């Protein structure tokens, strides 16, 4: 089970996980990214590259499936305006044993951060907004997964 969704509507981890818990595996692992109230942020606005995003996320799932023995994986990502406290992204993986699901989940979110064509704009309480800068720490975490 491989599923990618780009969503304008609120997402929640529960419905994303439901599909994975019924695959017969013993392990489901998930990561949910949530909008933080960083320095007065009230919401973020997510732009993406519509033609490329789905294919990119599906490639991440294919890469995870090639690397670990998975029964399924899902990625759901919000676009548009997302308020503080709401979920931006849910990634999850199912496997027979726990190591695979745990590692694949970390891989998927680490690679999504550096590879998937999304851009975040922060909106502040005073009405201003600015683009979020990419973080070098994300590059470091993503490169950990390079196959040697």
């Amino acid at each position, binding site marked *: 089970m491989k599923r990618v969704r780009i969503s304008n509507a609120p997402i929640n981890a529960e419905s994303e996980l439901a599909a994975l818990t019924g695959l017969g595996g013993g392990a489901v692992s998930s990561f949910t990214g949530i909008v933080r109230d960083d320095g007065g942020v009230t919401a973020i606005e997510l732009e*993406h*590259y519509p033609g490329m995003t789905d294919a990119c996320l599906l490639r991440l799932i294919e890469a995870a499936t090639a690397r670990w023995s998975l029964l399924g994986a899902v990625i759901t*990502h919000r676009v548009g305006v997302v308020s503080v406290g709401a979920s931006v992204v849910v990634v999850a993986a199912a496997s027979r044993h726990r190591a695979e699901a745990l590692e694949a989940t970390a891989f998927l979110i680490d690679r999504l951060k550096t*590879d998937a064509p999304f*851009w975040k704009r922060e909106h502040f309480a005073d009405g201003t907004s600015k*683009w979020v*800068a990419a973080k070098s720490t994300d590059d470091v975490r993503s490169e950990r997964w390079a196959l040697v």
Partner: protein
Amino acid sequence: MKLLYFASVRETVGVSSEEFAFPQDVRSVAEAIDWLSGQSDEHAVAFHDPSKLRFALDQNMATAGTLIGDANELAIFPPVTGG
């Protein structure tokens, strides 16, 4: 060639998409960026530091050195910040 711009690049250039016929000597992404910089003041500002830009050719990630070949779509954008 269809050009697509995203995020701050889109805002600086002022359009999200445009079409150009590159001259024959534009072979790589870097050469395309260099040529595009000459199209307007806005293009010049948006593309003045290619090290801060990222690229996709026909929706696959590319680098400055990637050859354009017969690609139909070049997207130019800042480093991604999803997740």
